[in-house]
């Protein structure tokens, strides 16, 4: 008798997902046992990819995102001669979810790429002049790639967290300019240049060999740390951090990104079947503040040296 009850529940869940979910919402819980306002267990691990210049692995529940930064030297454009760039790409490869096909990036992934890029390249969040090597001559371009390994709902929050952690994990290598004018971060050339500089200092002569250090090794830092929370609305109930099953049943989503001073970095509500009253929006902002307090210790623990106020 009990097995048939168990089967009934599973069948009901598949055939009538909306009614199944409503039964839980009416009791102010969700199928995985969480209260409406609680997010799933979150973890951040920096330096997950050893070959990358900076990386981080973030898990929110089952949703797993891995971000890696690869640095390259480029020649800056004339109208942006003293800054570098950060190129953000969020990818959802077919392995992350049954609903993703290989080929063109999904609208969700492109939307996430654009929004994260807007946040991370805003002058109040990240100072792009840090990426400058020599004005007009050379600057760093940081390719920040964020891969989804498991999409169980709310990929945006996880992607943003991974991006922030990865970027803070980056140590810019020392840069030297070679005799033929090429700018390089090659460790051998840098070591040679450092040795020459040391000799020149000791002998008091001008650095005769021609190679010189342009910029020394340094850690990247953010001016303020943006952390986001995505909530969904279903029948007027505000649900924090929806998982994949819940995402299909939402009337709309609202994402709020805050920084440590409580300033709004972004409030994002793209259309949807219902509107959000001011009260609901304020609730979202309040929930984001609580989320910030939850998540920022995780970031600090992992990248204590990388975060500046």
């Amino acid at each position, binding site marked *: 008798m009990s097995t048939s009850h168990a089967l009934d529940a599973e069948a009901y869940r598949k055939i009538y997902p909306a009614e199944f979910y409503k039964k839980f919402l009416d009791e102010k819980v969700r199928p995985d046992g969480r209260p409406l306002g609680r997010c799933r267990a979150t973890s951040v691990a920096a330096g997950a990819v050893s070959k990358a210049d900076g990386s981080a692995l973030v898990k929110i529940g089952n949703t797993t995102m891995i971000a890696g930064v690869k640095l390259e030297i480029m020649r800056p454009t004339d109208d942006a001669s003293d800054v570098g760039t950060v190129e953000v790409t969020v990818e959802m490869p077919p392995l992350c979810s049954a609903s993703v096909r290989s080929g063109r990036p999904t609208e969700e992934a492109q939307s996430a790429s654009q929004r994260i890029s807007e946040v991370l390249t805003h002058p109040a*969040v990240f100072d792009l002049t840090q990426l400058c090597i020599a004005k007009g001559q050379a600057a760093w371009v940081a390719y920040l790639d964020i891969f989804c390994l498991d999409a169980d709902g709310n990929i945006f929050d996880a992607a943003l967290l991974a991006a922030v952690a990865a970027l803070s994990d980056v140590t810019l290598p020392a840069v030297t300019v070679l005799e033929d004018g090429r700018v390089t971060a090659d460790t051998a050339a840098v070591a040679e240049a450092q040795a020459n500089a040391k000799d020149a200092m000791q002998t008091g002569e001008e650095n005769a060999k021609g190679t010189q250090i342009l910029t020394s090794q340094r850690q990247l830092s953010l001016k303020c740390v943006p952390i986001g929370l995505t909530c969904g609305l279903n029948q007027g109930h505000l649900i924090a951090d929806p998982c994949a099953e819940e995402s299909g049943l939402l009337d709309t989503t609202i994402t709020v990104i805050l920084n440590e001073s409580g300033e709004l970095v972004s409030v994002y509500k793209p259309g949807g079947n219902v509107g959000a009253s001011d009260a609901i929006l304020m609730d979202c902002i309040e929930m984001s503040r609580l989320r910030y307090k939850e998540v920022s210790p995780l970031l600090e623990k992992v990248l204590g040296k990388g975060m500046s106020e």
Partner: protein
Amino acid sequence: MESREDGREDNQMRQLACERNLLNRADGSARWSQGQSCVLAAVYGPRSTVGRKENPEQANIEVVFKPKIGFAGVEEHELEHVIRKTVEGVVLTSLHPRTGISVILQVLQNDGSVLACAINATSMALIDAGVPLKGLVAAVAIAVQESGGLILDPLLTEQKLARGMVTVAFVDAQPTEAGVPTEADTLTCTTSGLFSADQYLDSLNWGRTACSRIAAFCRVSLERYQRGSQMLA
């Protein structure tokens, strides 16, 4: 109080202009201008779609956004995402299952508040095509200045100097049903830049007032055009 570049008050909109039914082939079209910003919207549908996109319960909405110069990149795809979700919120998609409704937008001139302009043009084009809607959608942009003050419907130069910007869209429909977007509720909201929660709430209020004015303008515009074909009756 500093006056703005074009002499407007802080909470004054630019001049609105709307022309509908200007494209021959499209089922509905509208050209919407706010001052020097101008966007052209074309709507095709409901029409039959390709197998993969066919949804047995609803019409499938597709948005294409073309910038004034250059190819559509990630930035334009994000705008398409926002506009598509906004359109899905107002179109009665369940009345036309297994069909597709396409919205194509072309920026003709960009002098700030382009997303708001695009949403307004889309709304008028959908009405021109006779697509069944829950109500009129109106959108507006508000910029938060460095000084902390707000300005409505910013120019491109004002946008660049601003601390942050909020674009909001509201549905102009009377509240009769729980769940139907109403005047009080924000349908769509995107922001950029940093500002406080209080400034954000103020922007929403400004946006709400401005959108009801825009909706009133749309009403007058629709009435005037309709009068022409009424003469036959």
